[in-house]
């Protein structure tokens, strides 16, 4: 007996966003990356097009991070040098783009000046040809200062800069607008705030195709189901022609997965959990592949071994 597949029909699709700019476009990138454009739920190729393959941004920090040894060892000595670290991510680990987190700007830490931060961004831009994502530290006031300077120093590069939040979006949105960058709009696992923030940013004059949604994610075992439901709602909204939810989504899975105890607790501490070497990789890789299934376009990852696993997963899901 033949079975007819039930297919959903959608009236719209996810918006496309271009990251980076080549010399012709006013930047210095050797390639640009386009994300979004899907016209169905992820990887349901029989219902619609998954137009652009999800991409992996590897995380680089301006100060040596306190990550677990298994990740630190893979990165090696370059961990002291953001530019060399970024280059290794692209050349050796196959990163599609680089996510530079400027923790050193934090007034509670190194308290780097905006100019110092901008110089680091320029160094990384010089070291790699891929597009760049730049986020500041955990101090929103300081971020407004550094991102204004960075946005100007990298005018025309079409960086993906972050983050804009509901109570602090104007300064960074203006910086993105004036200096032609793309903006990350982060909401705290809240679909209503997610939509409202996109509306507010758009009202300032930043076009919808210059915004990427960061819905905030969680690691496997720490609320990823809720993340999934929020992202699914956004994706279904986009497919139903809700323009204010139609932006591609970025997920900071490396940060969230590696906060989970399962990703770093030793074998001795939890003998029943299996070997840490595998567990650490899997925790990040499974978190990443979970959010891929509900429409993540940009995965921000840390562990090179997990990146390798997820790259294969993406290729499999794309059917290539």
């Amino acid at each position: 007996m033949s079975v007819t597949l039930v297919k959903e029909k959608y009236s719209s699709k996810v918006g496309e966003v271009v990251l980076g700019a080549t010399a012709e476009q006013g930047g210095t990138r050797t390639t640009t990356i386009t994300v979004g454009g899907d016209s169905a739920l992820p990887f349901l190729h029989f219902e619609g097009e998954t137009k652009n393959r999800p991409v992996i941004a590897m995380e680089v920090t301006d100060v040596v991070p306190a990550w677990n040894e298994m990740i630190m060892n893979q990165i090696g000595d370059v961990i002291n040098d953001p530019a060399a670290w970024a280059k290794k991510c692209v050349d050796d680990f196959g990163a599609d783009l680089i996510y530079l987190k400027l923790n050193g700007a934090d007034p509670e830490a190194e308290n780097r000046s905006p100019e110092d931060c901008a110089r680091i961004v320029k160094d990384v831009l010089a070291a790699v040809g891929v597009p760049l994502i730049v986020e500041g530290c955990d101090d929103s006031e300081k971020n407004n200062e550094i991102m204004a300077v960075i946005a100007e120093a990298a005018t025309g590069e079409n960086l993906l800069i972050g983050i804009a939040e509901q109570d602090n979006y104007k300064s960074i949105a203006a910086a993105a607008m004036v200096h032609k960058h793309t903006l990350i709009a982060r909401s705290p696992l809240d679909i209503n705030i997610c939509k409202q923030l996109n509306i507010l940013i758009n009202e300032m004059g930043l076009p919808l195709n210059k915004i990427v949604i960061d819905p905030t994610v969680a690691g496997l075992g720490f609320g990823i189901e809720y993340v999934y439901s929020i992202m699914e709602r956004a994706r279904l909204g986009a497919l139903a022609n809700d323009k204010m939810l139609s932006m591609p989504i970025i997920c900071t899975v490396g940060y969230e997965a590696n906060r989970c105890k399962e990703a770093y607790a030793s074998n001795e501490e939890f003998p029943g959990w299996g070997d840490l070497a595998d567990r650490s990789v899997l925790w990040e890789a499974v978190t990443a592949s979970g959010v891929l299934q509900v429409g993540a376009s940009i995965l921000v990852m840390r562990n090179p071994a997990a990146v390798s696993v997820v790259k294969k997963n993406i290729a499999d899901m794309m059917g290539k």
Partner: protein
Amino acid sequence: MLIFGERINGMFTDIGDALRNKDPKPIQYWAVKQQEGGAHYLDVNSGPAIPTHERVEAYEWMVNVIQEVSELPLVLDSTNYDAIEAGLKVCKRPAIINSCPAEQVKIERVFPMAIQYNAGIIGLTMDKKGIPKDAENRVAFAMELVAAADEYGVPMEDLFIDPLILPVNVAQEHAPEVLESLRQVKMLANPAPRTVLGLSNVSQKSPDRNLINRTYMAMAIASGLDAAIMDANDDDLVDVAATCQILLNRSVYADSYLKVFRAR
């Protein structure tokens, strides 16, 4: 919820005069103003302002002058199908034919035309004998129109069933029957046909027109109404349409939802 702006109609003095004088300005003014108000489509009706033998030319002219200033798709509203066809020929975006009753002769004229021009159809739940009093007979006519859509290959979502609301001050008993019809029409096919009402009719000649319009619209949307030919510049009415989208969980809530609903 789709808003079909009702204002470009020869029954209104300014539009009637514009048609007689071939003055595009009032028509273009209302095209833009209704779009700003929140209209998704613009209903276009010459009314009696133009003699029957000049209507073909009039519809072609109206469509052209509207399209000079608005990107919105049109609802071509006439009992003269040659006039509608003249309009369809120059429409840049898929239009809607308004309207076709459940009468075989008219179905044979309208449904193939809809296919030819990739247009939607507003199907009226009435025949030569007029509008039924109850929901049962309205739904029976709707079924005939659904069957016609099936026969001619018109996609069900391109068929808008209009169960015909009458003024509440003279035909009060029709109001609940229309709500029941909306509920039942949605069960006639899967996917279901869409539904539409000429909303302002419900309040004809009543002093509290706006209140009656928006109260009835909220009730009708909850019963299955997908579109209304209505006053797109009655802000309170458009706000009710936007709020219904939220309360029926059809659109994700955001504090600025009223403003976003009007963005085109």
